[in-house]
């Protein structure tokens, strides 16, 4: 998908949440207020469009914390530039989900 591709507001919110450091499905749900039936399929779609990529957490970390290992998501370079375009399209996006960079400014 091209970097200037237009994302829906929901997809842009999920992308913004991941960029803001909410890298697990449930944390994205909590941050955006979207239900699981929206967030997970949207993340699959973003991943298949190469805007985000997923990676399993190391089992040793999960074992140390006595919990199951989770799958976390990260923005790709294409995803980052698409998010930039989406921020211009949806100016309130950053206010709704401030990213770490924005907060530090």
């Amino acid at each position, binding site marked *: 998908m091209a970097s200037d591709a237009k994302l829906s507001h929901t997809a842009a919110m999920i992308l913004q949440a991941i960029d803001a450091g909410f890298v*697990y*499905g449930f944390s994205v749900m*909590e941050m955006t207020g979207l239900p*699981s*039936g929206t967030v*997970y399929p949207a993340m699959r779609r973003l991943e298949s469009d190469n805007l985000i990529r997923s990676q399993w957490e190391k089992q040793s970390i999960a074992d140390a914390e006595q*919990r199951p*290992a*989770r*799958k976390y998501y990260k923005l790709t370079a294409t995803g980052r530039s698409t998010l930039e375009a989406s921020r211009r399209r949806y100016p309130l996006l950053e206010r709704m989900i401030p990213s770490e960079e924005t907060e530090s400014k």
Partner: protein
Amino acid sequence: MKPPFGWVFRVFDQCLLRSASVLVPGEQRSEWQQEWKAELWHVRQACAPTAAVSLKAEEAITAFCLGAFQDALYLRRGSRRKGTRLALMHGSAWHCLFWLAAVLAVSYTIANISAGVIAERHPEHYRVRSNLILIQDAHDTGDWAATIPVERYRSWKRMHQEYFDDLAFYRIQHETLSAGGDSGGVRAVGHGSANLFALLGLSVGSKDAGNSAGNSEPRLIVSYDAWKRDFGSNPHLINSLIRVGERRVRVAGVAPYGAWRLPGEADAWMLEPDSAIAAGAAGYVLAHMTPSVRSEMWNERVYITVHEADGSDEDFWGISFEERTQGPWGIYLFTVMLSFLSLPALTSVAIADYSFSSHQPSWTRNVIRWAFLGGKIIFLLAITYFLSLDLAYFSSTRYSPGASGVQFIFSFFICVFGLRWAVLDQRQRCPVCLRRVTHPARVGLASRTFLAWNGTELMCTGGHTLLHVPGLPTSWFDAPRWVYLDSSWKFLFAE
């Protein structure tokens, strides 16, 4: 401490996830379950951290689990989209070669389980010496009729032979064939001269069997069918004594399946000296010609006049039976040659390759294109061989002239129509990607033929070319033409 009855909700949530996982494509299911179970653990930790059972928290957790169904459905639809991508293969070169390979595999498999085809594919079992003929009374109009009495054969054997190296005799009669103490059954037994199989050049049976000192019994060659049916595939049958009618004979060997191709079917052949063959019904005389007689043959026949001792002349036909022993390969090669010669009569063999533009496909594309045509033809030739044999021996387990005729007909028609299809198919394949062009559209008006072309336009789904087929050939547009599309058209053909 875990809340009482909390396990009921946990089991319920697990059941929801497990039910949803059924919708997930098999290859993704394991990872999908792992992710949702991990997320569920965290959701439960976040929503119901306390010991008390909270219906509000369980409701939120269940709502989370219900979302798994939407996720699973999304993945299922995604796998269907992959299926759609596979469907785009439809009409591609690989798709075509795949189907040809599948037909070849099926016909080859059938050929390997059909007894008749297996026998046909082993010519070493039935191929006989060249220059052999069967002698038949010229007054008998039927082909392959037994017309020569054994007395006449003996008299010919005694005479000096100028045109034949050797002669052999056989006739078929029905007698009881019994082994050991059983009464046996009535079988067709060929009574032949001792040199019958040697003259044919068939290496059947042990030469020592029955000829060793002290063994005065005639030798018996048992057919493969009789060996299986009447002797239970006994591996120790050779050299044993069995009864044919009232006589004791020694089994000298078992003929391979389908080895006997001459007229008259026999379950066994009793080989004995000429003088021991009893007078009776007429039989067949087999002769090996000298090269001088071979040159006299016309239409696989030679006319023979025998001057008898009493001064009279008797006329006979010497009929070659090579067609019975040449095997399927000769028929196949002949029909393939015939098909290639007939093809131009059925369709134009020119592969349309004209272009309006100056663009031409690269030489590698041309090589691939011709290799694809070559591949199709190779597959077709192999399919022709096996499928024609399968059809010829569909209802026949052994050689017969009828089966040979059926093989000839099917081999010719499969090959000629297969080649016709290969050429027509090639003409409708995009020179760039080898997909079949589709979506035919009428272009122009017939009434404006001399002002602009009219006909059918077909399109490569890959967006490489258009094929223009003129509706009415004219001097300036008489053959289909390829129009190459440049990259500016690509956005219309996104896959």
